């Protein structure tokens, strides 16, 4: 479970050095691009581009595998299930009673699966290369209220801690004869009461200590707080931002102004 909570891998690549705001915008624009594309070939090109960027993040194999295994399962599911529910088009390749499999439906399923692939993987360009601290700082810079940003930073900081606490609680209850992987779903879920209650109590106690420590460090004492480290846009960040915007704008204009099929 250890590597799961933080996808960031410390490297020194171009993507690591990029301003986190540019990366957030890039994820946004590339996602939008995935939405406006409807044809297989452009979407496939986009997927290849995203995978290339992911390769350039130089993340570890185990993290990449973890990130991609769910996506792959989902893509297969969509491809398989789509033709069963989409009965339109000819030629019909196979028919079983009222259900028929048509060729266009297969292509449409595949297209949709690849779009999901794009939307799912593009996130990891950001997650693999940006520390949680930079992420929150970028969001605050982009207009998130500082106090909400702080709450977000706290929550990111505590996810692994609570993860380990929950594992430890599970172990403690296992040692008292509770079995989590036996019995019906109802029974299994019920067993988790013995985990959720101590976890919630522990979390609320943590919150109490935390609020004291925030107060003792002059949280909210003045509005015009300063930052020791500022994020600043450099020229390479600006160039990257322009490229990302163009990557979205050119196909968008081609589609919506000139009616190109993409």
């Amino acid at each position: 479970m250890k590597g799961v909570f933080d996808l960031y891998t410390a490297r020194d690549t171009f993507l690591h050095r990029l301003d986190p705001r540019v990366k957030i915008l890039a994820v946004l624009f590339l996602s939008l691009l995935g939405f406006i594309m409807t044809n297989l070939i452009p979407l496939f090109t986009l997927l290849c581009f995203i995978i290339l960027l992911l390769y350039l993040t130089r993340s570890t194999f185990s993290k990449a595998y973890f990130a991609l295994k769910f996506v792959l399962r989902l893509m297969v599911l969509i491809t398989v299930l789509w033709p069963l529910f989409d009965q339109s088009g000819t030629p019909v390749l196979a028919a079983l009673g009222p259900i028929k499999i048509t060729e266009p439906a297969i292509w449409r399923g595949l297209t949709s699966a690849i779009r999901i692939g794009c939307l799912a993987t593009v996130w990891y360009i950001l997650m693999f290369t940006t520390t949680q601290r930079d992420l929150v700082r970028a969001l605050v810079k982009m207009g998130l209220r500082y106090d909400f940003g702080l709450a977000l930073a706290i929550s990111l900081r505590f996810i692994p801690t609570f993860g380990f606490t929950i594992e430890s609680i599970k172990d403690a209850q296992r040692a008292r004869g509770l079995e989590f992987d036996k019995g019906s779903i109802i029974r299994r879920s019920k067993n988790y009461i013995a985990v959720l209650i101590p976890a919630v109590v522990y979390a609320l106690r943590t919150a109490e200590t935390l609020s004291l420590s925030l107060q003792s460090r002059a949280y909210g004492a003045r509005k015009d707080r300063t930052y020791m480290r500022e994020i600043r846009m450099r020229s390479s960040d600006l160039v990257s931002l322009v490229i990302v915007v163009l990557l979205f704008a050119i196909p968008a204009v081609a589609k919506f102004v000139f009616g190109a099929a993409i």
Partner: protein
Amino acid sequence: MTEDHSQGGPPVAQPPLAQAPQANFVSPKTVAIYGVLTALTAAITIITVIPFPPTKGYFNLGEAMVFFSALIFGWRAGAICGGVGSAIADVIIGYGYFAPITLTAKGVEGLVTGTIARLNGGKKWSSVLGIFCGGSCMVSIYFLAEVIILDTGIGYALSEMLTVNIPQVAIGGTLGFVLAHYVRKSIRLPK
């Protein structure tokens, strides 16, 4: 590097603390509780993965935390902690593309549950009704978003709704209710 490491810099003239504009931040308790509930929602979503044998799918108990936050700390906590916590979990476990939808679906779920649960003086039945309405909102938002926005096809969206989301809401709702009931009864809550 994106960071400016210069330690000194030009001295910035700052008014003394007494004259400085006070920040209109939410209270430190709120920040702490929201942060912690969000983290717990995410952690529970990630860890408590229960296999669902009929479809070989999986579902999680993060839902219980969304309902719990809404029932105990009100609609705002339900919306923020439930929405953000579940969305973070999505990003971490590889459903990043779902994160905006999750943020909306679970946010609305927490909001609706928290609002309805406080009606009628917060009686037990308001909680039950709140969980039911909130859960229904969540299930419908997911279904519609999958069909309309993500375009996963009716087949996938339907199978997801029936095999994952509905059982998840039913079980999460029950657990969230029990949890809230228990915590209210036996623990002095930070307010």
